[in-house]
């Protein structure tokens, strides 16, 4: 048995699963502290379906704690951004394009130092150890708790970042966490640097959250390993999560999509996840979320780490329904206050949930409260929702092939059975907890992303090596060797590098190896 938990901004969902069978499911408002929501979820599962804690083989948690901390600009560590690139890059110092309030929230300090590479691997300048030590002592003086290091073209050569990290650690001690840009982002200095600074600012919170999650699991007598969901839908162990909290950012939508794939049995489809405040529309190809190919904007900051391509629109179960001439739904929402403010719960705010109940699509709260709503208003609001969602799906579609739509999430009762111009809406069983199911069934991945110098006639051998290494990494991360397969392979020749250099990216995924 395994337990999947998805901690969203509004709700915490949990499922107890045996293979692909859902034994128990739980949905409850997210608590402000980390532990009590998890403990409550585990107790609720236990009360629905008695299980021995020793029978749980793994616990998977997807969490929005980290992205929400950034969006709300709360609980962030004072962070220094150290860039190696002088004399180049000085005209645009680190965090130049950040919203002012976020720079303040992380007490951000930018440092420029010599170093960096040209695109072909030549040095822009040599590292200056004295300069780095002076910067480090200034960081210490300003109470910096975490450092992000980015060197120009570090994806081509990481030597300066690694060496600078040693020097900074030597000055500041082991308590100051260091995040290196080549481990986090891709080509593109500003975006890679931004992702690294965000990661650095979340490191203390990551320790706190991981400790809290671990404690709440063990507190229930469960000794099984704990995993966190990543952006790509694979799992990471807790030590990895402490170092790379930023890779959890899109785990919510990813888990919903993966859950939708398993529940509906569809490998290629659009998934509409309707929550309390917004709807996320994503596309699955071969059961995996399609990745965004451009920069991803997070809380007003441009980054370039791998994220699923998701379009969010402001329609959810708590969306305000207003009528002035024509009917509007959202983007304002009562959010988690739905159970106090919606009319079906005795409140006085007309929400999308009230509309769904009035139309007879669901029975929630006290349906008699909405009996007297104007039928024209109900019809108008439902049409508005259907049109906006259909438009969003249409925008995500990249081919004229028919694209089946799977609706998940608690708010999906708002959607009609058919979207105009698109087709039938599939509503699988357990749709309300698809995200927790997505967490529970998540697999383990291994990735290789490296520049190889390929000698003539040696391509096949290099490709085999890269594939084998990705599979080995997946197994090392906990995958069952018999289930591991390559899901993504990509080779890009880099013509300006000497020696037939080719960038090879290879990703392997397998099922989690469970100890019986």
């Amino acid at each position, binding site marked *: 048995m395994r337990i999947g938990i998805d901690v969203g901004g509004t709700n915490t969902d949990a499922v107890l699963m045996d293979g692909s069978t859902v034994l128990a499911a739980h949905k409850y408002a997210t608590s402000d502290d980390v532990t009590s929501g998890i403990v409550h979820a585990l107790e609720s599962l236990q009360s629905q379906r008695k299980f021995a804690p020793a029978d749980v083989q793994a616990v998977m948690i997807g969490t929005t704690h980290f992205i929400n901390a950034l969006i709300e600009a709360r609980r962030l560590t004072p962070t220094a951004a150290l860039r190696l690139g002088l004399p180049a890059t000085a005209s645009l110092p680190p965090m*130049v*394009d950040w919203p002012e309030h976020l720079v303040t929230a992380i007490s951000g300090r930018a440092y420029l130092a010599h170093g960096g590479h040209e695109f072909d691997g030549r040095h822009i300048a040599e590292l200056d150890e004295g300069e780095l030590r002076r910067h480090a002592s200034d960081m210490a003086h300003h109470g910096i708790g975490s450092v992000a290091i980015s060197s120009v073209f570090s994806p081509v050569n990481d030597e300066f970042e690694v060496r600078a990290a040693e020097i900074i650690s030597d000055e500041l001690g082991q308590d100051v966490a260091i995040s290196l840009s080549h481990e986090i982002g891709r080509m593109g200095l*500003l975006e890679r640097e931004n992702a690294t600074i965000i990661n650095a600012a979340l490191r203390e919170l990551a320790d706190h959250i991981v400790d809290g999650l671990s404690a709440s699991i063990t507190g229930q007598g469960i000794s099984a390993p704990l995993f966190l969901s990543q952006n790509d839908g694979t799992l990471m162990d807790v030590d990895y999560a402490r170092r790379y909290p930023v890779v959890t950012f899109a785990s919510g939508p990813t888990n919903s999509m993966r859950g939708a794939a398993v529940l509906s049995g569809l490998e290629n489809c659009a998934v509409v996840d309707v929550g309390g405040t917004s709807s996320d529309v994503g596309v699955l190809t071969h059961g995996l979320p399609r990745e965004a190919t451009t920069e991803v904007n997070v809380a007003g900051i*441009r980054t370039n780490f791998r994220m699923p391509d998701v379009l969010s629109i402001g329609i959810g179960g708590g969306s305000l329904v207003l009528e002035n001439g024509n009917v509007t739904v959202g983007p304002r929402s009562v959010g988690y206050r739905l159970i106090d403010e919606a009319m079906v719960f005795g409140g006085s705010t007309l929400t999308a949930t009230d509309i769904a109940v009035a139309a007879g699509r669901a029975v929630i709260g006290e349906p008699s409260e909405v009996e007297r709503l104007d039928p024209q208003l109900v019809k108008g609001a439902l049409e508005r929702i259907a049109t906006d969602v259909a438009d969003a799906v249409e925008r995500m579609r990249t081919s004229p092939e028919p694209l089946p739509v799977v609706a998940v999430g608690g708010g999906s009762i708002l959607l009609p059975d058919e979207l105009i111009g698109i087709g039938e809406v599939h509503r699988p069983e357990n749709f309300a907890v698809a995200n927790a199911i997505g967490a529970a069934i998540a697999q383990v991945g291994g990735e290789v992303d490296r520049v190889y110098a390929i000698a003539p006639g040696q391509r096949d051998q290099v490709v085999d090596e890269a594939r084998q290494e990705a599979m080995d990494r997946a197994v090392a991360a906990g995958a069952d060797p018999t289930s591991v397969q390559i899901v993504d392979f990509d080779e890009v020749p880099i013509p300006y590098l000497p020696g037939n250099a080719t960038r090879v990216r290879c990703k392997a995924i397998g099922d989690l190896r469970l100890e019986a």
Partner: protein
Amino acid sequence: MRNITVEGRSALARGAAILGTGGGGDPHVGRLLAAQAMKSRGTIEVTSVEDVPDPLPAYRSA
């Protein structure tokens, strides 16, 4: 005569992208550079080419 302030940087970048008809790619970095320059040097005064006094060199772009 008009002035371009830091607030107008996004419109300036979009306009540059249209005049460039795609050449030079995303004007994001140019926008950041212009914003930095405006923060340290103040607003940009827009002058027509005819109004530039003769001995000063004039540069045209786009």
